């Protein structure tokens, strides 16, 4: 019996299925375990009704859909960071040109940015923008002040480059001086008689040379605005991304350097001092990527006042992770599935995702991000996982188009007609028939299924897609409209914190649902009504896509007419009669229209035909495959311990999982529910050993442990041999327990005893080998800690395990 008890697949159903999308799934996320032969083929159940090249088609469709979604997320992030990026770049460029006059001495400029989740993209943006300003220089407008066109040379400094002060200075100096395509030609230096390559004077000499070099360059470019003294100083800013200079902050652990933190601290203190002494001649800007938040500022906590006094520290905080997640969810995806108002959704009407995550998935993501990790990485990974999970379904090869990987509809139809894709065709047909006529299934059940017309089916798929998209669009717009009404009309000013907004959405949705919006709207004053209508009008007016505009033509007309009916704002305002009959009438009609409009659009997306191709519906987030096996945020320790304690439960759960995917046909291959709880001897070796381990004290005597293990194995051997060979078994038992009770009985004849003795010897060796193997497995899993002093004792690492 193998001792890796969790992952033994009871029946292996073809190893070559792994080329399909499920195994891609594990590859891309890195969340699944590497060797999960059992889980991967479990998806193969769908193969019954899959196309021959279904996995590849779906993989392609997935790639297209995910790439769209991913790019959109990136553009959202970029927009989110745009202002911050501009601010940082501005500060870098103006660091030494725009200085407060009257300071006692020049300060070194430090910009410390805290970007929780997604700092790398922010830095990439900053770098890009800095490079852009550099590129723009030659093309710069003559009238502009050249100081605004500071080229910024920058180097990246990583904690790994900075194990000590000398190395850090060397990294800084050579980083600038020795860059290949630098503006100054590199001059050969003698290693002994020249300045050391960690000497800041070297950088200074280089910078002086650089200044002269660019000076001549400038003279050619801006003959009119050339101002030698002032521009020379400010011409180049060195922007040093001390990517987590403060090593303790960075996520890319500094621990590998292995210096005690006090040394590190001293080192950076002196580094700061070194650099800030040279500030007047070397405009260095430090851009620090902090991973610790800005409010209990790490910089202020770490550096003494004397060091801080040399610097001009600016703390900049990027939008927090939660904001980013919300923003991304709002814009990227999303519908809010069905009428369950449980998702935080606001959506970008101008972006149509291929796949819409359903309520439960969004719920999960939101919960995870608020609770555990609001980083962008986590969000993207989870969305990707959801996407991939979605493409398990064979029908999803229609996600982007209905051509099935061919170039035309007729080719696709003939592909569908081929005998190999018959099951797929049937399932598709059933779905479409079912959608159009729910009772039809009863009729076709008994009769032999006739071959459906493939081309027609494909057209229907296409129609369903169009219909689905129309509905989803309508829903997005309706939600947007509802938000506008909520924000402007019902007095919720959108300046609260995120969580409140989330709550407000829920309130709002329930208001909409209960039709109370109408009542609230009727009570609006003229000014408010004006504001609401104006906002709505602007919203409809600014819709980007022509399709949407055409669809929402009615609503626009409606709003314009309502605006026309409403008495002008200023006239009424003076009269102070907010409840004049004319206003009430308009308000009522608007309210009624709004309720009807929203009701029309807030429909269940599940009602569409083939909805599950484009919509994940209420399927859960693929976080948990079975009770003990989580893909996202697992609890490995508990899982391992409970697997060791109850290996059979795991096997059982596994078989159930398998049954769920493969249908009831294979349900009998593993133990049933009413199997009695297995006794100890039925367990795998490691499990037996672990049981014995749990019964021990803090220290475990390895020999005693072996003894007790051997007893169980003996028991196991006896029972497995059955009642067949009692004598042998007895002898074996006796052998094994020789140390325990000394007085063995001589009952058997000599010949048999001899063979028995040989066998017993074998058995003994086997027991020992199995013990050693099981012990090493436990050791490998970290349950055993060796004491240095007592050779035959080990220390337990896990106590009080719930039984």
């Amino acid at each position, binding site marked *: 019996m193998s001792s890796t008890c969790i992952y033994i697949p009871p029946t292996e159903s073809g190893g070559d299925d792994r080329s399909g999308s499920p195994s891609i799934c594990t590859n891309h996320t890195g969340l699944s375990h590497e060797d999960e032969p059992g889980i991967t083929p479990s998806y193969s159940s769908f193969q019954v009704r899959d196309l021959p090249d279904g996995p590849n088609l779906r993989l392609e469709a997935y790639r297209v859909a995910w790439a769209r979604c991913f790019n959109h997320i990136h553009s959202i992030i970029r927009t989110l960071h745009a202002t911050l990026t501009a601010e940082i770049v501005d500060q870098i460029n103006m660091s030494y040109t725009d200085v407060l006059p009257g300071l006692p001495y020049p300060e070194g400029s430090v910009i410390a940015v805290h970007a929780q989740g997604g700092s790398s993209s922010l830095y990439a943006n900053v770098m890009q923008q800095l490079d852009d300003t550099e590129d723009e220089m030659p093309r710069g407008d003559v009238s502009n002040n050249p100081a605004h066109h500071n080229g910024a040379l920058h180097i990246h400094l990583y904690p790994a480059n900075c194990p000590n002060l000398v190395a850090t200075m060397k990294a800084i100096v050579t980083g600038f001086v020795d860059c290949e395509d630098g503006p100054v030609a590199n001059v050969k230096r003698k290693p002994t*008689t020249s300045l*050391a390559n960690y000497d800041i004077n070297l950088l200074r000499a280089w910078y002086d040379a650089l200044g002269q070099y660019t000076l001549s360059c400038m003279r050619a470019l801006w003959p009119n605005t050339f101002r030698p003294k002032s521009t020379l100083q400010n011409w180049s800013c060195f922007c040093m991304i001390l990517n987590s200079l403060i090593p303790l902050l960075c996520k890319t652990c500094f621990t590998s350097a292995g210096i005690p933190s006090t040394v590190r601290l001293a080192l950076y203190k002196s580094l700061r001092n070194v650099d800030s002494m040279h500030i007047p001649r070397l405009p260095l800007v430090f851009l620090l990527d902090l991973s610790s938040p800005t409010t209990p500022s790490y910089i202020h906590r770490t550096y003494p006042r004397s060091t801080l006094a040399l610097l001009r520290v600016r703390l900049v905080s990027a939008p927090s992770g939660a904001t980013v997640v919300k923003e991304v969810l709002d814009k990227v995806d999303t519908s809010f599935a069905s009428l369950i108002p449980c998702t935080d959704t606001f959506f970008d009407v101008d972006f149509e995702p291929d796949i819409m995550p359903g309520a439960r998935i969004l719920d999960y993501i939101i919960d995870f991000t608020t609770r555990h*990790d609001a980083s962008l990485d986590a969000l993207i990974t989870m969305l990707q996982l959801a996407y991939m999970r979605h493409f398990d379904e064979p029908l999803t090869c229609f996600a982007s188009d209905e051509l099935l990987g061919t170039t035309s509809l007729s080719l696709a139809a003939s592909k569908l007609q081929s005998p190999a894709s018959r099951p797929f065709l049937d399932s598709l047909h059933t779905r479409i028939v079912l959608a159009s006529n729910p009772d039809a299934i009863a009729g076709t059940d008994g009769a032999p299924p006739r071959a459906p017309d493939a081309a027609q089916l494909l057209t229907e798929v296409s129609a369903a897609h169009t219909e689905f998209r129309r509905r989803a669009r309508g829903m997005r717009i309706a939600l947007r409209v509802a938000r506008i009404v909520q924000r402007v009309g019902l007095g919720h000013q959108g300046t609260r914190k995120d969580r409140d907004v989330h709550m407000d959405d829920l309130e709002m949705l329930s208001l909409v649902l209960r039709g109370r919006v109408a009542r609230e709207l009727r009570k609006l004053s003229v000014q408010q009504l004006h504001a609401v209508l104006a906002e709505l009008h602007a919203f409809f007016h600014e819709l980007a896509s022509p399709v949407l505009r055409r669809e929402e033509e009615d609503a626009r007309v409606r709003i314009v007419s309502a605006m026309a009916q409403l008495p002008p704002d200023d006239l009424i305002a003076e009269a102070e009669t907010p409840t004049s009959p004319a206003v009430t009438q308009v308000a009522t009609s608007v309210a009624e229209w709004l309720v009807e409009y929203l009701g029309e659009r807030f429909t269940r997306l599940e009602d569409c035909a083939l909805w599950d191709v484009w919509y994940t519906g209420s399927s859960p987030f693929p976080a948990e495959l079975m009770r003990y096996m989580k893909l996202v945020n697992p609890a490995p320790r508990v899982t391992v311990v409970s697997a060791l304690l109850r290996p059979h439960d795991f096997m059982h759960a596994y078989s159930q999982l398998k049954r769920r995917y493969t249908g009831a046909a294979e349900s009998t291959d593993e133990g049933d529910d009413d199997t009695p709880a297995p006794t100890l001897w039925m367990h795998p070796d490691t499990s037996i050993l672990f049981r014995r381990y749990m019964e021990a004290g803090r220290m475990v005597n390895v020999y005693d442990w072996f003894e007790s293990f051997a007893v169980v194995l003996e028991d196991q051997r006896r029972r497995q041999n059955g009642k067949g060979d009692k004598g042998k078994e007895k002898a074996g038992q006796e052998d094994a327990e020789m140390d325990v009770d000394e007085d063995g009985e001589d009952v058997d004849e000599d010949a048999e005893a001899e063979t028995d003795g040989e066998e017993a010897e074998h058995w003994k060796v086997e027991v020992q080998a199995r013990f050693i193997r099981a012990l090493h497995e436990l050791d490998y899993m970290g349950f055993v800690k060796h004491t240095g002093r007592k050779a035959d004792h080990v220390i337990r690492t896990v106590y009080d395990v719930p039984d």
Partner: protein
Amino acid sequence: MTTEDVADAFVPAGYDTLVAHLEILLSSYPPPFIFIHDPEIPRITCSVVHNLLSNLLQPSQSSARGSFAFVDAVATFTPRLFYDTVLNALTGWDPKWEDGCENWLGTDGQRWNENLDAFLHGLKAVSMQKPVKGSDTSGKGKARATVAEDEPHRMILVVERAERLKETVPDLLVPLTRLAELAQVDITTIFISDVRWEGFRPSLGASPEPYYVDVSILSKQATIDIMESSFPADTASSSSLTDPDTYHSALRPLYGHFISTLYSICSPFTRDPHELMYIVAARWPGFVQPVLDAHRRQIEEWKRCSHATNGHPSDMPPSDASEDEAAPGTEQEAQEPLLVPPTEDVRIRLTRLFTPSLTAALDALYPRLTNAEDWARMHKSPPDLLAVPPAQVPSAFQAAADSSGPAEGGIDALPRLAKFVLVAAFLASTNPPKSDMRMFGRGPDERAKRRRRRVSSPRKPKPGTTGGAVKIPQRLLGPTSFPLDRLIAILGVLLEENDVETRPVAPQYTLPGEYTDMEISRVAVYAEIMELASIRLLLRTSSADKLDNTPTFKCGISYDVALRLARDVGVMLNDLMWEPA
């Protein structure tokens, strides 16, 4: 030209004695090792000494011939850097990029930075160097005397922040104090430090006793004089933040008054002129803005009048109230009104308005919680303050402050679980481990134990008796370290009591507490702890490479932060603390 003339021109107030003292010493027969101790403001002392030396040894001076090197012990963190910097400075050599940044090599192109011996030879070479006429190596300290060529010239080596020598180049400390003796040249070593020589003197008397020079503490008048003399003369160096006229020469008297007010407020906390000037730089633009606004309004009035009267500004009615305040009695008839010092009334009014903000500036700027520029931006004075009626002034200040509040960010944006972990870490760091069972034990048996123990071991000594030493609460003593398991256990209690309702439903967990048990053993919890340790909100006290040992941590947040986080997640922190605040 006497030496006094030279010195006087560069000496800030309060440093006369130091300068006179040093000057006499250095121009006659200096001791080989001088130690200048300035506990207060070594930075100014350094600049004074620097000025003195560059004047004393400049080529036009015939009284002394020599060169000096000014090195900072922080910057010269290896012996090689030290040798290079000193020799280059003594010879006035400026390494050029085009020459491959070569150091000064002397006549025979020898390498001087190899070790101490080479350095001493280098010093000898410097002192023996015959200045060549028309040499391309001209520097500020370069000796160019033409008289008495055979006389070796004097060298002075000043080491700033000398206490750092002990850390950066400990082996050099003793040789530097005996440099003249070792190199057999006329060289004087001066250490400037804010630490006393006893603080880092090499043991066993390896160094000779220095000649001590103590810098006296600056008097009030001297400090104010220094600050006043630093009124930026050049208004061209203004930033986008300040008005171009902020440092107009007409405002100089007001500046003087402003500085004395500021000194009287801040001197109990700091008397460092640089620190005070830092605060001045941040506050002065806002302080003077109302005066400038009033002046600008006056100019506008004048322009309008001159337009109205068709180019006859002399008819302008002098009825403007602000004019009386800002520029009484100026000749605004003939030309545009000039900026003049404000009247006594205006000055007193401004001082009264801005005095509260001076203490605020001290609070924020002295510990550098923010920088001067940002502070000045955040505390701009409300527009046209002098025209605002006195009753509305506080609200105007309020509005100006509100408009630019600091952006919210930081610890509040942490995920919910991270907040729980931090609160748990704070509790684990402040509560004694023995109290855990009593504070967090939940269940019948623990409660019984708790009651019993409380009876048996009274915590407080009886009133009246001293009970030994006064017990200081752990909260004030700093965090203690705790093992990871304890943190997880406390986290479990907190989660079980405060987080159960917010979790998504999980019907598979039936036993009470099973769900929480599962939650605290998840990867995300451990990941969160490591993440917090990496951003230093938890401080890891055990070494990270030892996988065998259980990791220990310390809490890295203060009581206030912990309280805020606890309130955020709904934990009653004070109830769970062994010694509540």
